[in-house]
């Protein structure tokens, strides 16, 4: 390799420069590639932002043989995630971040009480290297995004910027099947329309809510959407449909479109 090691780095290698920084220390959970690409995108990490929330999820009863949304539980899953995320965002605002990248949102069950859930949101606060404020969210606060550093760089080079992490949740009770109903279908393959329609309704509610959040954030679209199902603490016929993604807006003048390189297609010879 013929590339020069910068003077600053050389001095540190030679031991000429002390490791003590007057300007403070940044914290992040970046990998090496992530760190380099976030900087390449023009941003500097300033610190990890954390928000957590321990939430007591209420109880809701559903009729045994009925499809329905369990709105009390939906609201709980929403409210608790919202609390964790807004606390994380408040921390970022306090440290003057323009945005948070690589947000990881996780849910943990607490051992001693099945109704207690712990929600944790953690991400790395970043500032624009040249103090550009155009990357902030529509309300002037830091943007949030669950995209990794690599994805963040890619997104900017696709001509978009992240605005807000958006999500939609629907906790749903799927009806049980009566014994008589099951007997009628012996010897035939038939669709259980009741179950099919339960999936449709629950999924639609979750997607709708996520889309509404993106609309409220004045976004053009939502990228990296994941729609999945999970059951956290509930009975076997209760599932949560959860949609999550990053709402994005096209870049206006932050990166001129002509500066965006054309991608090169790669056929990997690795398996």
């Amino acid at each position: 390799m013929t590339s020069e090691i910068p003077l600053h780095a050389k001095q540190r290698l030679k031991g000429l420069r002390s490791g003590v920084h007057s300007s403070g220390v940044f914290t992040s959970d970046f990998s090496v590639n992530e760190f380099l690409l976030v900087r390449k995108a023009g941003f500097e990490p300033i610190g990890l932002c954390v928000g957590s929330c321990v939430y007591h999820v209420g109880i809701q009863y559903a009729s045994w043989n009925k499809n329905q949304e369990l709105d009390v539980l939906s609201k709980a899953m929403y409210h608790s995630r919202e609390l964790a995320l807004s606390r994380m965002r408040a921390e970022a605002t306090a440290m003057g971040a323009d945005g948070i990248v690589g947000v990881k949102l996780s849910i943990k069950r607490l051992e001693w009480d099945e109704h207690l859930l712990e929600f944790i949101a953690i991400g790395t606060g970043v500032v624009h290297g040249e103090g550009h404020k155009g990357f902030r969210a529509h309300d002037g606060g830091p943007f949030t995004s669950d995209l990794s550093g690599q994805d963040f760089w890619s997104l900017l080079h696709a001509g978009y910027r992240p605005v807000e992490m958006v999500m939609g949740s629907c906790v749903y009770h799927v009806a049980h099947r009566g014994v008589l109903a099951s007997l009628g279908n012996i010897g035939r393959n038939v669709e259980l329309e009741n179950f099919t329609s339960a999936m449709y309704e629950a999924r639609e509610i979750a997607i709708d809510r996520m889309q509404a959040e993106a609309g409220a954030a004045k976004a053009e679209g939502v990228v990296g959407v994941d729609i999945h199902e999970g059951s956290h603490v509930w009975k076997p016929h209760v599932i949560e449909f959860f949609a999550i993604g990053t709402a994005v807006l096209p870049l206006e003048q932050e990166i001129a479109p002509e500066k965006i390189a054309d991608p090169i297609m790669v056929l990997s010879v690795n398996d």
Partner: protein
Amino acid sequence: MGFFDLFKGPSAETLAAQQEGEARRADILLALHNGTVPTRVQRRLEGARSGKLPWIATLTPAELIAVRSHGIKPIASVSATCWLHHGWSWTEGHQQGWEMALRRLRDEAVAAGANAVLDVKMRTIRLPVEESMDFTLIGTAVSVADMPPSPEPIVATVPTLEFVKLLEADVVPTGLAVGAAYEWLVDWQGNAARAWMGNIEAKKLSQLWNRVRHRSYFELKKNARSRGNGVLAHIDFSQMFEVEQNERKRYLARHIIVATTVDARPGAPFPHEIKMAVDMHAGATPLTGTNRHHQSYELNDEEGAI
């Protein structure tokens, strides 16, 4: 909701929400019956199509770059489900279930004014409902620049980057094909497994496998013919069981193959040369396209009737 709330009547708000829910469920059931898209889904898709609602894409940001360079525009997330009770045959139900889900997915794509559905994932929710399985497809409907909406959008079970790569090579991924077959073998002579004889081929079982596999590949071909001139088989699922009943052994062999169908022009040149590159992605990279696109066949030892 507190304990004492149970004795109170529902509030007006709750009642209204309940009524809305009932109407929504009735509408979904009606749509399933008539083979149409449920009203609420239709409304969302039309909103996204006209740009009134934000677009929704399961694409990664890296894929958005390809979208920009190849004129592909995400519209909305589309999905379809068929929850099938297999009172007749579990194995053959897979063909039936995915086929139905595929048709419904295509209907949603038409409603979204799409040319294609990309990144289609096969999913199954495991609820403890006896003898039944959920066949769900989720993907992103996209339109291609300067093309009118297609009356029959193609369904691509590959992620966007792979889709673009295939297109550049003049190959169009067109959908899913399923081949499924099973057979029961009754061991009348009681010598199919030959467990007592040392090294020897269990011929009857070999032949059983042979027949079942050939039949499922035949079914796959038959199923794929209407969609393209080739398949890339990505799921190969097989099981064999021994069942003992009235001191007689019976064997069940079943085989399911799921494949992406492609429409390829033989001998089309590939426009790229090979270059070395460094991939900055940490861990799994989208370049290799090894993202798992299904979780419906995770276990190879699942119980179930035929």
